[in-house]
């Protein structure tokens, strides 16, 4: 499994467990909107960011904590991956 897939899987697991108990995991597709659709509210977004920063040791800038960077599971994982590779590079 690539890093990208691993991060995506972990992020989805966190989202399901924390914010979507009893949701069918298949409904949480990689590209489903979560922030612009109100699935994650502002408090959930803050908790998600805290989780990402702690789990991956990355730091998100204020402008990144928005639907522009974190709307879908794929975008969330992509933002984290970008941070990690920036650091590795």
């Amino acid at each position, binding site marked *: 499994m690539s890093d990208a897939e691993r991060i995506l899987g972990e992020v989805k697991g966190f989202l399901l467990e924390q914010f*979507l108990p*009893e949701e*069918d995991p298949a*409904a949480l597709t990689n590209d489903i*909107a*979560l922030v612009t659709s*109100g*699935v994650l*509210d502002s408090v959930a977004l803050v908790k998600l960011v805290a989780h990402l920063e702690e789990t991956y040791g990355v730091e998100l800038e204020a402008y990144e904590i928005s639907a522009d960077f974190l709307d879908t599971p794929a975008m969330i994982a992509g933002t984290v991956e970008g941070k990690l590779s920036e650091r590795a590079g």
Partner: protein
Amino acid sequence: MIAGLDDLLSRSAARWPDRAAVSTADGGERLTYSELERAAGSIRDALARHGVGPGDRIAVCAPKSPASVAAILGILQAGAAYVPVDPTAPAARGAFVIEDCGVAAAIVAADLLAGLRGAGELELTGLEPWRKAPGDRAIEIVRGPGGEKTRDAPLAYVLYTSGSTGRPKGVVHTHDSALSFVRWCADTFDLSEEDRFSSHAPFHFDLSIFDLYVSLLHGGEIVLFGEGISKQPTAMAAAIAERGISVWYSTPSVLRLMVEFGQLESYDWSALRLVLFAGEVFPVKHLRALLEAWPAPRYFNLYGPTETNVCTYFEVPAEIPADREDPFPIGLVCENDRGLVVDEGDRPVASGEEGELLITGGTVMSGYWNLPERSASAFHVDRDGTRWYRTGDLVREAADGNLLFVGRRDRMVKRRGYRVELGEIESALYRHPEVIEAAVIAVPDEDGVRIEAFVSRTDGGKGSIIEMKTFCSKELPLYMIPDRFLFRPSLPKTSTDKIDYQALARGAS
């Protein structure tokens, strides 16, 4: 002489033309008092060119910025009342407000205009674009559906709040009721032109009345926390410290988020000297944590529905006993209002007994827009002809005279400081094509309340929570979207075949 809210600006602009009047939290945009007065004046003149003026209502639908503050003040200078429309809510809701309030014109951020036009049957013909300065984001002045001009006491603003029948209702305030509150603040808190006031609440939320006008009265600086930063505790905390905010006002929820995620230990808080909170109960455990992080300021719990501005207040003691668990009182009735605690027959209860809080006095609204029956039933008129606003809040008077909040009489709850009528959420859920039955309850939890929606679907099965929330986001403001969805083949009924809310509450986890 201060006769209207707009006089607060002209007076301070005459006295302190070069002091900062309004800025963004990041410090990127800033207007002095003379610049703000000039910008407001150009809005006023543009409105006058199109025949909009005294007795009219004008909607403002734009993100928070110095330009939108200038728009509000320009509307007031024109003698009209402003009607803030939540720029983040579904366009259909904004279109409803514009239609319901019969606004003569609307001042709309250019990128929100198409959505509003598409959501209703509103034409919103363009009158002219407006810019505070060349290169600024475009704001459009457009013609509204129009309506009758008001003739009584000049209205200042109409704030729409959640309505139990499924539609928001407009709370109407005059310049007099707003100024009564603003003057009470000046008498109660020790404020000056040196103060920097946070503006955290959006303009359609009544906390904004303090932020804007108390600051303008004193010649202070309004520091705008816009739609983005106001939800980001780390950036918010940094801005409060770096911009030297001295007066902070928000809901307890926002303060809690900052305690938990704001890294408050990293900053110098010496400028901060007054923290006000309102809109919901502040759980003592979280308030204690806040006082530990910010030990210096004075803290006040302010209480009052949108209909009354602030009508009671309580100063939180500097030290909170370690064993205290009960929330602090809502306090004493403000000096410019009077309060009464009554039973279901509107008879005053004995001190210490529970009853509904009624409020009369300078800060109370004139009524709901275009809802004469709702307005009449919102007040109890006593034998002397005094109109008492029924808050719907149950309170009890403690031995020391402070009022304690006990609960609600109806199905309105406070979630993160916002009023939420559970019935309005149910109305939205019933618009979902697969929903046969819907019932929404509020369950107390450590974050305040959690909103749970029980739904039965045409297929009798489980739906997707993501799909339900996405649907709700097109019908309701984000703060009204239920936290949880529970799918049931059918909902429990009482013997009279109504949905049995008690049974649902017992079954909620």
